[in-house]
Structures are given as C-alpha cells and as structure tokens.
C-alpha cells in the first residue's frame, strides 16, 4: 500500500520538476516576462523615491507596503505569462492530454513562477536599500522567510488565476483584478511583517500572529489550487 503511494508521490514530484524546468528554460531563453518585470519593479522603486523623498525613519515605516506593492505589480507580469505561454501552438492541449495530473502541472508552473518572482525580488531589495538609504539586512533571514512565504502565496493565487483566465482576451487586465482582492489577507500579513523586520525588530511577540496568518493563507490556497486546478483545465 505504502510503496505505490510513494511511487505516485515521486512521479508527481518528478513531473512537477519537469514542468518547472521547462518553464524556466523557456523564460531564460526569451526573458520576455523577466525583463519586463525587473524593469517595471525598478521604475516603480525609482519613481517612488523621487515622488516622496522620505526620511530614513519614514521610509522604514512604509517599507513593507512599498515593497509588496512593487512585488505584487511586477509579479503580475510574470504570472500572466505562466499559462499564456502554453497557448502558442496549442501546447496546453498536449499537456492536458498527457498522463500528468493537473496538480502536478500546476505545482510545476508555481515553482517556476516562484523562482522567477524571487529573482525579481532579490534584485529589488538591494536597489530599495540604496535608493531609500535603508539597512534592510538587519533581520536578513527572518525577512527572507517572510518574502518567501508572501511570494509563495502570491504565486499560488496568481498561477491558479493564470490558468483560469488563459483563454480570456482581456487576461492581462483580469488577472490583477482577480488576484489582488483575494491576496488581501496574505499581502496584509506580509506587509505587517516586513515593515518591523526592515526596522530591525526581531520576528517574535506580536508579529507571530501575522506569520501564522501568512502560513495559513499559503497552506489553504495551495490546497485549494491543487484540488481545483483539474476542473479549471478541462471544461
């Protein structure tokens, strides 16, 4: 009983990684979404630094909101391409017809999106530190944990809605309209955690409930997406 289950899990993970590596390879060859996303994120950071000219203290106070605004907007450009990439040559049909579960396909795409989003964020964070004169590395590893959890939430919801909107003509508009309202609890928790961490406060005390909310958001939406994606892909 345990051996077939283990074999099934290994096959599931292997297929997910195959899809993830295919997506990453395709994106790294064209750099369509990555270039647009990095450029967009840097432009927002630059424009905000010109627009507000805040002091160091004020910057730290708005850092969580500012960073997650940039991550969410720039992330939409990557997430939009996730399933849209499969439309050319009807590649999605070949994947749906293949013996790969919708959940494995979804997880593979989500992992590739996570890697791309994290790459954009890792470019943004040092630029944010320089433009806004903020020593953002005071709580480096706790901040990385929050960035990872928040980005996973954004990736899961965004990848799911990328699958749902892939056949819509206005998908570039529809994706952010659908994703951002659903992301509110996750983004709220990420913002509430990021601001104190950038200010050097340790990840403890009254920050823990926000961390729990962020983890719960990730777990719930990951489970929902894995359960529902097959229905979304085959209509």
């Amino acid at each position, binding site marked *: 009983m345990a051996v077939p289950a283990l074999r099934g899990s290994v*096959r599931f993970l*292997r*297929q997910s990684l*195959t*899809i993830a590596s*295919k997506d990453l*390879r*395709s994106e790294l*060859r*064209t750099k369509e979404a990555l270039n647009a996303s990095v450029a967009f994120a840097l432009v927002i950071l630059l424009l905000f630094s010109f627009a507000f000219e805040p002091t160091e203290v004020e910057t730290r106070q708005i850092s969580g909101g500012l960073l997650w605004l940039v991550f969410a907007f720039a992330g939409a450009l990557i997430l939009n391409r996730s399933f849209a990439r499969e439309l*050319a*040559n*009807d*590649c999605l*049909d*070949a*994947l*749906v*017809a*293949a*013996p*790969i*579960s919708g959940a494995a396909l979804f997880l593979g795409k989500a992992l590739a999106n996570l890697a791309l989003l994290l790459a954009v964020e890792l470019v943004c964070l040092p630029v944010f530190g320089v433009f806004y004169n903020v020593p953002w590395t005071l709580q480096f590893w706790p901040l990385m944990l929050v960035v990872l959890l928040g980005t996973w939430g954004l990736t899961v919801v965004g990848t799911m809605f990328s699958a749902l909107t892939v056949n819509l003509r206005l998908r570039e508009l529809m994706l952010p309209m659908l994703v951002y309202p659903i992301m509110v609890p996750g983004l709220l928790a990420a913002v509430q955690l990021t601001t104190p961490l950038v200010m050097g406060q340790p990840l403890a005390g009254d920050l823990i409930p926000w961390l729990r909310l962020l983890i719960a958001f990730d777990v719930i939406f990951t489970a929902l997406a894995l359960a529902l994606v097959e229905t979304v892909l*085959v*209509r």
Partner: protein
Amino acid sequence: MNPVQVAGVWKFYGDFPALRDVGFEVQPGACMALLGRNGAGKTTLLRIVAGLARPTRGSVSVCGAESRDRASRHSIGVLGHGISLYDELSAFENLHLFGRIYGLAEPKRAATEWLERTGLARVRDGLVREFSRGMRQRLAVARAFLHEPSVLLLDEPFTALDDRAIALLQTLLRDALAGGRTIVISTHQLREALALATHVALLVRGRLAHTGERTAEMLEDTGWLYRHYGEA
C-alpha cells in the same frame, strides 16, 4: 472490449448542442475516418475522446478506462490543429520533455530515435522557432507517436503538410495499423483519409448520420458518402 467507446455523448456550448447523442465504437487495429462539414462537431468529439473536454452528457472510454483516467491518457496519442511544441526549445528538448512527462524509461533514446525516423536528426539542437512549417509538422508527428500510443487521435493531420510530411505520416499510420493500433482521424482531405480508413463515421450538425465500414465505392467516389448520408 473495443479500445474506443463513445456512448450517448452530448456537448452543449451555452444552449447550442455541438454534439447530439453521438455513439460509436472503434475496434482494435481499425482506423475510423471521422468526416463532416465545418462545424459538424468533429473537433469537439475528438477533444472529448482525448480527454481535453468533458461531455455534457454521455460517456467515453479509451482502452477500458474513462478518457481522463491516467491509464487511458498513457495509451492516447493526440495530433491536433496546433503542433503542441515549444518554439523556445530545441527539437530534442521538446521530445525529451514529452518523453519525461509520459514517464518513458529512456526518454533520451526515444527522442533520438524519433528524430531519426522523422528525418530531423541533423537539426536535433535547432530551436523549433527556426524550423520550416514542414519540419515543425514532422516534429509534431514525432511527439504524437513518441510514447507508442495504442490509440491515435488525429485532427486534420494532413493540413499544411508538405509532400514529404504527408508520405511520412501515411507510412507511420500504416505501420501503426499493421501493429494493431487504433486510429481515429478527422479530416476534410477525404482521399487520404479514406485510403487509410477501415471504417467511417459521418457527423452532420453534431449528430452521427452514418457509421460503418469503409466501402470500395467510397474510395472510388469520395463524394458518395456525403450524397447518401449528408445534407444536400
């Protein structure tokens, strides 16, 4: 048990019935030519058999399992309207990718072998976006046959093929039939389809107007079937 069984299939797009109570079976080693005018429901039916769409009513089984079942997807090879290949990947990478997805024991060997069989070995590492239309179609054929499926579902496979690709596809399909595989082929190119087919099914406005063996008179006069069973 017949490898393809379609029973009482209806498909509605909104209020419009694209398929109305369609039912047929295809025997092992048979080639069913699915014929009909534009909009008759051929592509919709093939998509449902391939597990790419769900029927509103009715059932479809492939090799004894529901068409979305993992086991049946292993035994289906689909060649649709699009080539279903990634432009940013090389010919080898595309076939290797699908070999891995289908869980082949040796995906690299299978990819290399099919590149040779389709005459694409010399452009193994060339990106698909740099290929001519004929080369892309040959690679699409290789992708569909890569995992040695026992049921082949082909939607307009001869469209936009050059002479070489048509000859290649016909050879592969004849080999597949000789090997006991089952083929369902939807096409407007009656001469090519009827030359291969052992059976025909004619769809008229989503309804199955005729199903049966392909006869000699159909082969001699490709318009015979439409005149006798189709709409005027």
